[in-house]
C-alpha cells in the first residue's frame, strides 16, 4: 500500500564540512544492507534519501533500516498525482488506515518544493483538508495539537503524502569515527556499551577474557551470541572477537595477592592486555561497560587505580547510566535474554567476599609486584585466539548436531 520510504538523516546535519562524506557513507550503508531485495531502487537528495519499494513489503525494509545507525527518522509515503483530487483521495485512505479509536483531530501540512503548483502551501493545506473533512466520520481539524498530521510533500520529482514518522536509531553512519576495542564480559552492560559506541560510528573489535575450566565454553558461546546481535548494526555485519586465555593470570593473582585486591589486580591485567592489543592493531580507544559505583571495582577510586595502567582513552558510555536504563537498551537490542544466561564469567569466579572499594595505589602496586604478572601477560597476548563473527552466520563454540524440527 505504500510506494516509498523517505529517510531523514540524523545528527550529521550539524556537521558542515564533512557533510558530504557522512551522507555518502550512510547512503552506501543503506544500499548495501538493502541488497537482499534487488527490486528496491534508491534516490539521494541533499537532505533526504528515498527508497522506492517497487512491491517489496515495507515491513521488511523497515527491519533493515532499524539496524542502520545515522538515520534520524523515516516515513512511509504514498505517491500521488500533483492535483487536489488525487491527494485528497489518497489522503483519505491513508488517514483511515492510521485512524484509531482515540484519534479525532487532524491537520494537513504541505511542503511545496514544486513551485509550479499554483497555490501557497497554506492554501494547499486548507483546500486538501476541506476535501478530506466530510469524508471521514468524526474527524475535526486541529492545527495546534492534531492526533494525525497528513504531510503533503510536493516535489518536482513527484508528490508524496505520509502520516507517520518513525524514529530511526540516530547517531553517525557506521565506520565513520575510527576503531575501538570493546571489553566484553558477557554481562548486561558491555553489549549495551558496544551498541552505543557503534551508534556513534565507531568500528568495533571485541576482547574477551576466558578462564577455562572456571568458565565454560557456554560462557564463550554467550559472548559470541551477544556479538552476533551487535554485528547487525555494523556496515559489514561482521565483528572480530579476540579471546584471551586468562586462567594463568587469574590463578597467579589468587595464589599470591591479598584477596581484597583480587578484582582490582585482575582488571589492571585486563586493561594492560587491552591497551597492548590497541597499540599493536592501531585502535584508537578502549570501550567497556563500567558504570560508576555499580560494583566494588567500579567505584571512582577503583576506576582510577585501574585506569592508571593505560594511556589509551577509555570510553565508558554507561558511566552515568542506572541499571534500569541499561536493561531497557539491552532489551531493545535483544542482548538482555542472552546476557542473563546463568554461566560464570571471568569476573564472577574468585570474587572475594569483601573486595576493597577504596584501593590505594601504593598498596595495589605492592600486591601486583608479588604476582610478577608481566611474563604471563605477554604469554596471554601471544596466545590470543581470533574468531571472526557475522550476523548472517551463527558461530558455534561447540559444534553440536542441530535438531531439525
Amino acid at each position, binding site marked *: 500500500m505504500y510506494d516509498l520510504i523517505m529517510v531523514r538523516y540524523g545528527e550529521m546535519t550539524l556537521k558542515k564540512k564533512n557533510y558530504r562524506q557522512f551522507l555518502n557513507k550512510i547512503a552506501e550503508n543503506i544500499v548495501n544492507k538493502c541488497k537482499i531485495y534487488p527490486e528496491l531502487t534508491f534516490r539521494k537528495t541533499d537532505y533526504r534519501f528515498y527508497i522506492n519499494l517497487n512491491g517489496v513489503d515495507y515491513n521488511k525494509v523497515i527491519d533493515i533500516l532499524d539496524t542502520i545507525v545515522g538515520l534520524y527518522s523515516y516515513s512511509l509515503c504514498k505517491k500521488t498525482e500533483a492535483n487536489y483530487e488525487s491527494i485528497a483521495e489518497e489522503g483519505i485512505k491513508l488517514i483511515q488506515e492510521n485512524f484509531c*479509536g482515540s484519534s479525532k483531530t487532524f491537520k494537513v501540512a504541505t511542503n511545496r518544493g514544486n513551485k509550479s503548483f499554483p497555490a501557497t502551501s497554506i492554501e494547499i493545506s486548507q483546500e486538501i483538508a476541506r476535501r478530506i473533512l466530510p469524508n471521514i466520520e468524526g474527524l475535526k481539524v486541529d492545527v495546534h495539537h492534531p492526533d494525525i498530521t497528513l504531510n503533503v510533500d510536493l516535489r518536482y520529482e513527484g508528490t508524496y503524502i505520509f502520516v507517520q514518522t518513525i524514529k530511526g536509531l540516530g547517531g553517525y553512519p557506521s565506520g565513520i569515527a575510527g576503531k575501538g576495542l570493546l571489553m566484553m564480559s558477557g554481562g548486561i552492560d558491555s553489549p549495551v556499551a558496544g551498541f552505543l559506541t557503534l551508534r556513534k560510528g565507531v568500528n568495533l573489535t571485541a576482547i574477551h577474557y576466558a578462564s577455562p575450566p572456571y568458565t565454560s565454553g557456554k560462557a564463550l558461546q554467550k559472548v559470541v551470541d551477544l556479538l552476533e546481535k551487535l554485528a547487525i548494526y555494523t556496515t559489514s555485519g561482521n565483528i572480530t572477537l579476540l579471546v584471551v586465555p586468562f586462567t594463568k593470570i587469574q590463578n597467579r593473582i589468587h595464589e599470591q595477592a591479598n584477596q581484597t585486591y583480587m578484582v582490582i589486580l585482575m582488571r589492571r591485567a585486563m586493561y594492560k592486555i587491552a591497551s597492548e592489543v590497541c597499540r599493536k592493531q592501531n585502535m584508537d580507544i578502549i570501550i567497556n561497560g563500567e558504570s560508576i559505583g555499580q560494583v566494588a571495582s567500579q567505584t571512582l577510586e577503583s576506576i582510577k587505580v585501574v585506569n592508571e595502567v593505560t594511556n589509551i582513552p577509555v570510553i565508558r558510555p554507561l558511566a552515568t547510566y542506572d541499571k534500569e536504563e541499561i536493561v531497557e537498551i539491552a532489551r531493545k537490542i535483544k542482548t538482555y535474554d542472552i546476557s542473563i544466561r*546463568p554461566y560464570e564469567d571471568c569476573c564472577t569466579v574468585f570474587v572475594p567476599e569483601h573486595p576493597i572499594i577504596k584501593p590505594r595505589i601504593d598498596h595495589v602496586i605492592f600486591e601486583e609486584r608479588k604476582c610478577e604478572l608481566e611474563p604471563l601477560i605477554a604469554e596471554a597476548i601471544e596466545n590470543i585466539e581470533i574468531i571472526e563473527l557475522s550476523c548472517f552466520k551463527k558461530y558455534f563454540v561447540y559444534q*553440536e548436531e542441530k535438531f531439525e*524440527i
Partner: protein
Amino acid sequence: MRYFDYTATTPIDKEVLETYIKVQNSYFANTSSLHSLGQKSNALFEQASAEIKDLLGLKQHNIVYTSNATEANNLAIYGIVEKHIRGKLITTKIEHPSVFEVFKNLERKGYDVVYLDVDEKGIIDIKQLQREIDKNTILVSIMWVNNIVGSIQPIKEIIKIVSGYPKTKLHVDAVQGIGKINPDFNFKDIDLFTISAHKIYGPKGIGALIYNQNIDLYKRLYGSSAQYGVKPGTIDVALVVSLCKALKKYLPLTEEHYQYVLSLNRRFRSKLENQEGIIFNSCLKASPYIINLSLPHINGETIVHILEEKEIYLSTGSACSSKLKKPEKTIYNMTKSELLATTTIRIGLSHLLSQTDIDDLAQEIGEIANV
C-alpha cells in the same frame, strides 16, 4: 469409523508423533539444568520458540507454554485483569467456556464486564465495541473463530479500535483459526493470544499463551522463574517441539487445506440446504471447517447417539460444554431460539476427509431429518 469432530480435537500427525518420540528420548534433561545435557534441551526449547515466533511473524512476543488453551486463556485474562483492582472488561456472549467462565468469575469479583451481542451470523457489531470501549477498559477478549458455528470475528478492525486505547489490552483466542484460516491481520499487533497443538494435528497437553513482551503479567502461580514466572515448572521439551513441528507443517498448508475443506463444506451444504427439517446455523462466511446445524424436532444428543451406532462421530455444541444440558449459548445468542439451541449438532471438517465421507454423512443426516 468416520470422524467428523475435528473441531473438538484432531488425531496426531505421524511426523509430529515421530518428532515427539525422538525428542522425548534424546532431550529428556531439564532445561534448567546447568550441565551440557540440560543446556542441550534448553537450546532445542529455545530453537522451537524462535521458530514458532518466526512462523507467526513475531519479534516482540514471549511464548509461555501451558497444558492446554484453557490454561493459557486463564493465565492471559487473570494475568492482565488482576493487576487492576477495578475496571471495565469487554468480551462476547459466544466465547469458549475457558474465556466466558473467567469473565463470569471476574464479574462476581466486582469487575464491570460487558458481553457484546452477536448477530444472526454469530459476528459482533463493531460499533457496539466502539461505543463500549473507553479509557477505563483494561481488557478486550474476543475469539478469532468461534468453536460452535465457526463465525469469524473482524479481528483486524478490533485491533484498530483497541490500539486507540493505549491502556487497553487485546486478547484473542486463536485456537480455531490458526493453521486453518490465513489471517487478514498480523499476530504481532495482538497483545495476547492463545493457541493449542491438538487442534492442528499436534499432541494434547500443550497450548501456548503468546503475549507482547512489554506486558508484565500478574503471576498466578509461584515457583521458579521458568517461562517468565508466568507458568513455572519443568518444561516438556518434546511437547513444545511437537507444537512447533505441527505449526511448521500445517501453517504453510493453510490455504491449500482451506480451499479443499471449503469445497467439502459446500458439497455438504448443497446436499442438505433445501431439505426440510434442517437449519444451518453456520453462515456461508463462517470458517469452512465448522458446520453447525439444528434438526428442530430432534435433540442434538439423540442425533449423536444415532450416528455413533453407525460409527460416525460428531458433537453437539462444543465438547467442552456438551456435558451440561443447557441450550448452546452461541446458537441461542445468534438465533434467540431455545429450540434451535438444544437441537444443534456440530460437524468438524478436516482435509483428511474425502468427498465420499461427506456424501455419506449428508445422507445419514438427511435420513434422520426425514423421520
